[in-house]
């Protein structure tokens, strides 16, 4: 299927696509006036996303973190506003930390330097370093003359693999992403257009108009938006990730509606959302009508078309996948009232989802016994958030129409500024379903999970941080590749030594136990306990303003198969002083016995995009990325990556070219 020699026709075709991208760029240029700020934060974003997603098995959550961090980079948090909703945009902070920041600013006045952030009670140095790149220390309130200027930000990413084409694709073998955002005072708007590899132009379109106020009307969004209420058991279309074991605090009950700027084609709302607040009361309402992807079953007697399952990858690059696109309409609506006291916040959330086609999974498969069936699902939840001295309690309980429930209860204790402890209990019954909900947990389905997590972060000595956590989870019903009720354990210990701002050393041990079906020789498969051990050592050193280096070694071992994987990588970042050019270079060599012991290597990438290749087999991976600053209002980035895999003495190479043009006004 793969042809490795592009013909002249292909080149003309690519030129045509590039011309289209240029046309869009020029069109945007002549329609808007300019204003700008732009700081390159791609390294910080990659580092923070990797830290937050350290205990995740795949790269999906890291991608979400990267998108959120790029959003923060584009519009930094005005920390001195002392406004909860504004500071809560630091999605990795807990309510406890947000409250401490607000209290600090109200009692001590505005924060005047980024170094001061680390002195706020409850904010350790590591958390402060995560915040600083995305912090705006200006004290001017929103709505002043500066914020009334028209701002816009436009980027186009173009990704293709030279010499590769798949004949089953219905569109060009390249990926294209265009994002545009415009801001004028309290109003903002934007759109995103995306075409994945092999899809037709333009497969995904998204847009929004947003108003942010400070009176009774706090926010109104028309178009595409995402929501989160409380712990997310009822509604959470924002970050849907697992539970990191070595971060200082967990994000707690927080209500957020915000414009949708991601390119995930499924988990968002399309319609209208509004947030109101009056004194201690708050109210959020939303309505959405959106077409979603699904696999449809057409019975032989044509009695009724039903949906066998949802299709969530967002990829529509073949005829068969295109048939799954937008086959079903989902109408969702909901309301969430809240009461906010000084140390206590209480809220409720009710939501209902209606589908144009009934969902009818194959119930002959025992794994699907508890799966959702029908075309209507409603969920009701109650959540709270309580601060008692140096202790934060938060929780949510949710019930859906099928008499199934979910509970999450967390507690964060800070006995001193150097020690933070977290505990989280959650129980999601196998039949609990909220199509846009995702509470804290590790099962991607958001149900069928009972677990207890404990973790701490300690500043053990000057510059030395130790964090550790353990999570024990039971899955009371069957799940993917596990035909029995099963359990899992996760343990992680991390040492960070930060002797000065230019040097950091990290050592992480991670052990994960899980249960999977054993390949049956005959009859019913047995269960096998898999132990997955991972050690990561990393040194980062910033030599001067122009040059920084990072060295990292990963070792992974899977038992009982005894499969091992190891990778060794070197990053070099260099920027010139006299010309506006910056380079990122990586060289990585790896050796893994099989796919199970694969190693994920986070890469610096184009803003709005991410690259976390799973390194498996034996080979090397290297890339070179260059950024050329075109004046003060535009930049061009080029990334070329090549992966060589050695197989039976033959080297197979795949390469990829990524191009980005970005302007900001």
């Amino acid at each position: 299927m793969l042809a490795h020699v592009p013909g002249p026709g292909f080149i003309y075709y690519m030129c045509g696509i590039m011309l289209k991208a240029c046309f869009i760029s020029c069109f945007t240029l002549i329609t808007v006036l300019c204003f700008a700020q732009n700081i390159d934060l791609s390294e910080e974003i990659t580092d923070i996303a990797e830290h937050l997603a350290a205990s995740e098995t795949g790269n999906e959550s890291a991608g979400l973190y990267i998108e959120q961090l790029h959003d923060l980079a584009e519009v930094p948090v005005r920390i001195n506003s002392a406004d909860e909703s504004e500071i809560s945009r630091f999605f990795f902070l807990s309510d406890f930390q947000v409250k401490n920041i607000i209290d600090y600013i109200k009692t001590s006045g505005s924060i005047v330097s980024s170094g001061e952030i680390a002195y706020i009670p409850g904010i350790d140095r590591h958390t402060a370093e995560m915040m600083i790149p995305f912090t705006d220390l200006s004290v001017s309130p929103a709505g002043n003359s500066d914020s009334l200027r028209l701002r816009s930000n436009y980027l186009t990413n173009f990704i293709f693999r030279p010499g590769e084409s798949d004949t089953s694709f219905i569109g060009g073998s390249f990926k294209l992403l265009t994002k545009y955002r415009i801001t004028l005072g309290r109003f903002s708007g934007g759109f995103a257009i995306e075409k994945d590899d092999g899809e037709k132009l333009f497969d995904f379109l998204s847009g929004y108009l947003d108003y942010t106020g400070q009176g009774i009307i706090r926010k109104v969004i028309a178009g595409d938006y995402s929501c989160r209420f409380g712990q997310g058991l009822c509604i959470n279309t924002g970050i849907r990730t697992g539970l990191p074991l070595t971060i200082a605090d967990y994000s707690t009950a927080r209500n957020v509606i915000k414009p949708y700027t991601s390119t995930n084609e499924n988990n968002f709302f399309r319609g209208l959302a509004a947030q109101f607040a009056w004194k201690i009361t708050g109210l959020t309402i939303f309505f959405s009508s959106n077409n979603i992807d699904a696999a449809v079953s057409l019975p032989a007697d044509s009695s009724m078309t039903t949906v066998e399952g949802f299709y969530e990858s967002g990829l529509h690059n073949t005829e068969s996948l295109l048939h799954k696109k937008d086959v079903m309409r989902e109408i969702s609506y909901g309301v969430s009232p809240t009461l906010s006291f000084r140390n206590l916040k209480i809220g409720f959330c009710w939501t209902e989802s209606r589908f144009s086609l009934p969902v009818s999974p194959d119930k002959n498969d025992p794994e699907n016994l508890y799966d959702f069936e029908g075309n209507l699902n409603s969920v009701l939840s109650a959540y709270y958030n309580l601060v008692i001295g140096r202790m934060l309690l938060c929780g949510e309980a949710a019930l859906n129409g099928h008499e199934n429930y979910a509970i999450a209860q967390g507690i964060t204790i800070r006995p001193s500024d150097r020690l933070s402890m977290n505990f989280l209990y959650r129980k999601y019954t196998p039949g609990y379903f909220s199509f846009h909900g995702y509470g804290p947990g590790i099962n991607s389905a958001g149900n069928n999970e009972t677990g207890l997590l404990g973790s701490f972060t300690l500043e053990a000595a000057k510059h030395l941080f130790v964090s550790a956590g353990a999570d024990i989870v039971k899955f009371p019903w069957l799940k993917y590749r596990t035909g029995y009720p099963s359990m899992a354990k996760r343990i992680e210990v991390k040492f960070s030594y930060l002797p000065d701002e230019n040097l950091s050393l990290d050592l992480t041990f991670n052990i994960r136990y899980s249960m999977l079906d054993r390949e049956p020789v005959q009859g019913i498969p047995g269960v096998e306990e898999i132990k997955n051990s991972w050690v990561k050592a990393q040194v980062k050193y910033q030599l001067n303003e122009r040059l920084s280096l990072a060295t990292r070694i990963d070792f992974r071992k899977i038992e009982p198969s005894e499969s091992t994987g190891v990778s060794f990588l070197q990053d070099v970042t260099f920027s010139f002083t006299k010309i506006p050019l910056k380079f990122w270079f990586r060289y990585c060599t790896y050796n893994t016995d099989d796919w199970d012991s694969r190693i994920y290597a986070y890469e610096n990438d184009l803003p709005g995009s991410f690259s976390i290749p799973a390194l498996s087999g034996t080979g090397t991976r290297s890339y070179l990325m260059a950024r050329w600053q075109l004046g003060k209002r535009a930049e061009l980035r080029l990334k070329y990556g090549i992966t060589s895999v050695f197989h039976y003495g033959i080297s197979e190479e795949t390469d990829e070219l990524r191009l980005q043009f970005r302007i900001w006004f």
Partner: protein
Amino acid sequence: MGSLCVMRPGFWSSFGNPALLSENSSLLAGVNYENRFNICELGTRTIGLTIPARSSSLGIIYSHFGYSDFRRSSIGLSCGMPLSENFSAGARVDYFFENTSGDYDNSQSVTCEAGIFFRPNENINIGIHIFNPVPNSLRKRIMPSSLRAGAGIKLSKVLFAGAEAEMTTARKIIIRTGFEYEPGKNLFLRAGFSSENTSFTFGLGYRLKVVMIDLGFATHEKLGITSAASLVFRIK
């Protein structure tokens, strides 16, 4: 020193990491003979020359391994230069030639390598080296690539210790560690360990006016001892 060479300035190590050439300020010439497991067919003969050129330095090395039926030779031309007060970089171009008797084909290839060396402070050395970062699609035969990184610390005026990691494509990662102790003037004792074949190394060196004499031994868990001797002359 457990074959540590990526961060320890010296005549031979400057051929292991060309960035270390910037530490050489003299015209030096050296010869080395290494014999593996007391088998003369597995001997390696090496000669090298470093030439200071203003702030930078050039290096030339020729190495020959094997016997009449199988010979592998390499020639390298390298250059290292300081880029700032505590940071230097270097690069090298290598030509390899492999000669086999009988009907087998002879092979030759060209590649490059590069390294950096820096001192965060006066007692700590850090070195990084990449060998053959060239895609194999550009050559007829596959040549492995490798990455090495290491750090060393000067624990006192007479004691230096270091560790480095190396990974070559399709091979396991190798950890090396070692130290060099100067018990008397111009006398050096060295010892180290390498995780490759669980190898322990021992060595000593003596500086006699313009000549540096070195002897080294490395154990192999199954095959015995590798020994090496070298002479380095300070010409100017």
